[in-house]
Every structure is written in C-alpha cells, then in structure tokens.
C-alpha cells in the first residue's frame, strides 16, 4: 500500500485516539459519520425497532387466533395486523438485517480494508432506509393496509381501503437503500481486498454478501417499477394490471414474485454466510468443502431468478410452465442441501464447543433443514394444490425466515458482539436464550404444519372449532418465543455497560476481523494486513487431539 507520509501520520493519529466508539462522542459525530462500523450500529438500532414493532403485530395475530371466532373484534383489523407484520418484517427487518448490520460492520474488516468503497453513499442509504421506514410505518398506522405484504391486484388497486400508495412509496424509497448497499458491497469486494486476499481466500460470509448484493442490485429495481405501476393504477383507477382495458392482473404476480422470490434468498443467504463462519470456529476445524459452499451461494443466487412461477401454481398459469417452475424449484434445493451437508462435514471429528453462537448455528441447521424440505412439498405441483393458502405455507416460510434467518442473525450478533462492542455478554444467559428460542419457535410453528395439512386457511380471522387446540399450542409457543427475543435485548444491553472487556479474538477464530482490536480503531487496521492463506486455517484435528491428550 503506497500511503504518503502525511497519510500515515493522519492514520496513526486516529488510531491512537482509541476505538471507533470513542472517536467522536457527539450526536453529530454519529449522525454524520461515514465510518462503516458506526453506520452498522445506526442500522442495528433501527432494525431492532422494526423487529419489535413487527413482533408486537405477530403477537397480536397469535392472540386473535386463540379462539375460533377471533379475539380482536373485527376481521378488518386482523387483516391490517398481519399486513403490518409482513410488510415490516420482510422489508424492514429480514431483507436488510444481516447485510446492513453485520455486513456493513464486517465486509471492510474481512477485506482488510479501512472502509467500504463509497462511505458517504453508505450513510445516505441509512437515511433513505429511515425515510422509507417512517413513511411505511405512517401508512400502516394511520390508515392501515389489508392486502397482505404481497399487494395482489386488483384487491390492492381497486378495492382495498387504506394507504396502499403511501406504503408502496415507503418500500420504494427503502428499496433504493438496498440497491445502493448492494452496489457498495460488490464494488468493495472487487476493489478493496487486502494484498494476498484472492477470491478463494475470502471467507464464505463475503461470498454470501456478494451473492446477496447481486440479488439486491438486480431484483430490487423490478419491485420498484412494479410498485410504481401499482401506485399509478391505484391513484388513477386505471392501469396495466386492469383486465377491463386489456391489462393482465397475473402480470402483477409475475413481476412481484420475480423480485420476491429472489428476495427470499436475499433474506436467507446472509444467514448461510454467518453460519459458515460460526461452525468452523466452534468446531476448531477448517470449513469442509469450501469451494462447494462458495459456488452453492452463487448458484442459489442465479437459480433464484428462475423459480418465481411456483408462487402461482393455482393462479391459472399454464400447466407446462408450472411443471417447469416446479422442476427449477427442486433444483434450488441442491445447493442448499450441499451447504447443510458441508456444515455437518465441518463438525465431523471437530472439537465442538457449545458456546451461544454455536447453539444458534445448530438451531439454524435443524430449522432450516425442516423449512427447506417442506419447501419441496409446496414446490411439488400436486401437493401444492392442497397446501397452498394454508398454514402449511406459513409454517414453511417461518421455518426458513425465523428459524433460519433470525437464528442466524442472533448467532452472528453474539459471535461478533465482542468485536462490535468490545464487551463480552453473559454466556449462560445467552445459551439459555438460544435454547428457549429454539423451543419456543418449534412450539409456535410446528403445530401450523399440522393445521395447514388439515386444511386451515391462512390469513383468516376466524377458523373452525376443531383447529383450536393446535392454535392454542401455537399461541402459547409464541409467548415463549417473545420472551426469548426479549432476553438478548436485556442482557446484550446490560453487557454494553457491565460486560467483561473482550480480547481481540475471544473465540480463537481465524479471519482478518479478529486480528484487530475489539472494538476496532476507526481505521480498522493500522497496518494493512497481508493475507497468506485461506480463511479457515485451523490446525488439522489430529494435531489438536495430540496436544490435548
């Protein structure tokens, strides 16, 4: 690195100032920061708020379903609740969660770089995200929307009451935050790798973020134009999805799912990345089949663009296209399965430590596998005709998104918490939370598989009395799950002030981010690191055995 002497002076002066957390303490130094680590924390705060708003809506949904005739009084408010839950959780938690928090924090650190390629753009995305989120929240609270998060036409354009246009505007704006974040990550990974950090020496987390960024950049604009056409149709009561003038309502579903199926992978791929970092660390072993995992991420990103039709098997599309989409959907299960087997292979004969991040990662593998396999049920044409629009789909989706993605997010948050904050969290509480989360989750969502299989429709305010027992189970589980989510909020906040000081590398992990201090200085690395080996250079298990005997 050819830094001028003036640069070196400037950089060592900033490094001497301490960590990025103490480099400026005013509100202004946070709100106008271009430091990727501080922006990550701004995002972490915001998505936590969105997560709990969406969570409260989910709790109310479960509360309503405790009795067959519904507890909340009106079907209309129930519809608004599950729409609020879906919209907030999908666009303001699941899609951004890992990339904008852990991704923002870790991508430059893992690259051995001092910041992302475009730091000011990075800050700008946070303001876009907040603006979009505020507009959407306003729409959801002032008027509410009852269309579900999918905004199907013609319900959303012609019949629905509420602030559909305003919500669409909010999602549209926050979409540009996603696009800019994706551009920033891709360009950074191409241009800012440390000396010696070749592509195949990058940690899998970076590959996952790269794949996700490709999806963000190429899929999000499709949603943007779709929402724009939707908003125009709603405003003018005439539009391209309107069959009265020769438009096609199915066209909306095609466009929407062309974004929203890749979006499912936008939500889960970063989770794969997180788990691929945690498992080698806590197995003290190199990641099994590194290149397979890498290319599985890339192929998931590519294939995800060609499976959208499986959301429309009963919408009246051609049988031939349905068969094709069914086969393509099966195809995407292959790279996903490769990953699961490789994680298991990594643990095989490793020294497994059951620290909290590992518990979350193990939970992830189990729940993601169940979610993935039930995905094959609904991707199968004949089975889907029976299961579509039932709670089976709800359960499947939540196994991937909550069981998979949220577990991975919490795992990653715990794993990198010492790096981010410089503090250790109380390990015992973290393990308890991980276990309670796993139990509460299964309690909540497993009954929904059975309910769906028995034919209970989703998005329905009331249901037949014979479904009540399983619904009460599910709602009881949801209260356990809620407690499990509040636990980390409490002990992680506690650790900020009272936690033990974290060493640079508390887990004995490889990876560039562990080579700098916890928390890192503003410049990340005073000396730019030089990479000489792959990302998971743990000693072979045999030698570790001998050492420990």
């Amino acid at each position, binding site marked *: 690195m050819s830094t001028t002497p003036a640069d070196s002076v400037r950089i060592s002066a900033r490094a001497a100032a301490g960590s990025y957390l103490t480099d400026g303490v005013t509100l202004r130094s946070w709100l106008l920061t271009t430091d990727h680590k501080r922006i990550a924390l701004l995002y972490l705060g915001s998505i936590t708020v969105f997560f709990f708003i969406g969570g409260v809506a989910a709790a109310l949904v479960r509360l309503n379903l405790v009795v067959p005739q519904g507890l909340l009084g009106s079907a209309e408010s129930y519809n608004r609740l599950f729409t609020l839950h879906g919209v907030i959780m999908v666009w303001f938690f699941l899609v951004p969660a890992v990339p904008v928090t852990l991704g923002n924090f870790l991508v430059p650190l893992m690259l051995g770089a001092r910041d992302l390629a475009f*730091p000011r753009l990075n800050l700008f995305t946070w303001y876009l995200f907040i603006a979009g989120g505020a507009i959407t929240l306003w729409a959801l609270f002032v008027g509410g929307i009852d269309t579900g998060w999918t905004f199907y036409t013609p319900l959303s354009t012609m019949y629905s009451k509420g602030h559909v246009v305003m919500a669409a505007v909010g999602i549209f704006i926050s979409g540009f935050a996603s696009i*800019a974040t994706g551009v920033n990550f891709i360009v950074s990974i191409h241009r800012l790798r440390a000396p010696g950090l070749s592509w195949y020496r990058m940690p899998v987390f970076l590959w996952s973020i790269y794949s996700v960024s490709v999806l963000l*950049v*190429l899929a999000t604009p499709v949603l943007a134009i779709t929402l*724009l*056409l939707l908003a125009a149709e709603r405003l003018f009561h005439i539009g391209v999805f309107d069959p009265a003038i020769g438009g096609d309502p199915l066209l909306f579903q095609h*466009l929407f799912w062309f974004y929203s199926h890749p979006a499912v992978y936008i939500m889960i791929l970063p989770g794969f990345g997180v788990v691929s970092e945690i498992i080698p660390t806590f197995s003290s072993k190199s990641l099994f089949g590194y290149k397979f995992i890498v290319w599985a991420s890339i192929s998931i990103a590519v294939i995800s663009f060609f499976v959208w039709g499986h959301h429309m098997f009963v919408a009246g599309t051609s049988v031939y296209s349905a068969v094709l989409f069914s086969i393509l959907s099966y195809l995407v299960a292959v790279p996903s399965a490769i990953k699961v087997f490789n994680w298991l292979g990594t643990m095989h004969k490793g020294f497994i430590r059951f620290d909290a991040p590992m518990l979350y990662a193990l939970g992830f593998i189990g729940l993601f596998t169940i979610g993935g396999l039930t995905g094959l049920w609904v991707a199968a044409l004949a089975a889907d005709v029976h299961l579509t629009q039932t709670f089976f789909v709800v359960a499947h989706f939540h196994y991937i998104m909550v069981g998979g993605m949220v577990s991975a997010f919490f795992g990653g948050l715990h794993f990198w918490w010492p790096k981010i904050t410089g503090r250790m969290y109380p390990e015992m509480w973290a393990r308890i939370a991980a276990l309670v989360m796993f139990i509460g989750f299964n309690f909540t969502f497993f009954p929904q598989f059975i309910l769906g299989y028995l034919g209970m429709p989703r998005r329905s305010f009331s249901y037949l009395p014979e479904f009540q027992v399983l619904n009460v189970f599910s709602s009881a589980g949801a209260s356990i799950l809620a407690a499990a989510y509040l636990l980390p909020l409490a002990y992680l906040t506690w650790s900020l002030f009272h936690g033990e000081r974290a060493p640079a590398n508390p887990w004995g992990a490889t990876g560039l981010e562990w080579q700098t201090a916890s928390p890192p200085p503003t410049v990340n690395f005073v000396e730019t690191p030089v990479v000489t080996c792959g990302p998971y250079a743990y000693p072979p298990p045999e030698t570790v055995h001998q050492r420990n005997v």
Partner: protein
Amino acid sequence: MSSTVAHGFQYESASYQAQTAIAGMWLFLASEVMFFGPLILTWIFSRHWNPVGFDAGGRETDLSIGTLNTFVIVTSSCLYALGVQFIRQGNVRWMILCCSATLVLGLVFLALKFGVEWPEDIAHHLFPTAAHFKITGSTEGGARLFFIFYFVATALHGVHMVVGIGLLLWLIRRAGRGDFSSGYHTPVIVVGIYWSFVDVVWLTLYPLIYLIGRGP
C-alpha cells in the same frame, strides 16, 4: 496521475479510487436496466395481447416532436462526449462550454416533451383517464393501455433527465471552481456514463412510442 489529489483512506491512490467510482456507476446502471427492463417487457407483453389498440394509440402520438427530441438528446450526448475529451486534455473552459450545451439541450428536450407534447396529448383527450377518450370503439381499452405506458415511461425518463441536469449543474459549478484537470475528472466521466444511459433509454422508447404503431 498527480499524487496531490486527495483520496479516501481506504484507497491506495487517487486513480484507483477513480476507477472504482466508474465501476460503481456501471453497477448502478445494471440496476437501472432492471428498472426500465420490466416496464418495457410489460409494454411489449401488453401490446402482444392488444395489438390493434396499441397501434391506434401509437398513431395519435406526435411523431415530429418525438423525432426532434431524439435528435436533441443524441446531440446532447455527443457534445458531452466532446466535453470529456476536452477535460482529458485539461481544457476546462471548453469542457464547461460542452457541459452547458448539453444542459441546454436537455432543457430543450424537457420543454418539448412536457411543455408542448404532453399538454397537446392531454388536450386531445389522450390521457388514459379521460372521460371522453379520443379513441372509441373496440380499440379504446388497448389505446388507453398504450397511453398509460406512454405517460409512465416518459415521466420516468423525464425524472432521470432532471436528475441528469442537476448533475450537470453540479459539474459546471465544480469545474468553474477549478476542481477538474487532465489528472482528475472522475465525476465528469461518471456523469457522462449516466447521461448516455438516459439517452439509450430514450432510443428504446422512441420506436415503442412513435414508430411501431405507424407500421404497415
């Protein structure tokens, strides 16, 4: 490349940072392609099911303004490209002149499009919600659909032009302050890529709007 140019502390050199900025713009344009792409695909798809209505709508568009605007916008891109050549040789004065000419042509385009053509279309009862739509009979629905696409696409293209004009103003101001030289002019190149893209979008819209409906 001169080493006096300041660069971000994550970059080795100013030239490396410059190339990175250019890469970022290309990637953003990939995203833009996926923004306009579905719109155009949807247009062609809807046309496929309503060919007669779309033809009837297309024949009502103002071919002369559309063609004139095509000349205006292509010329503006050409002048901009000249400006880039000038700044490469360090000729700031002529670069400012070229950027200003580009800006004026951009404004001409917008004036013709939204000051003349749109009001004319609306006066002729061609706005899709018009109560007494100009085209009646069996082709009315398809023609209304055509004009939805027409207004949405030209509005979106117009928004991109306005953003481009804002960027041009910013460039001219910076160039006037002496920020650019033969050694450093990355923003000029980056904005140029964007402006050319907006130009290409128009070249795609032009046949869809004005030509296809007038075919045999």
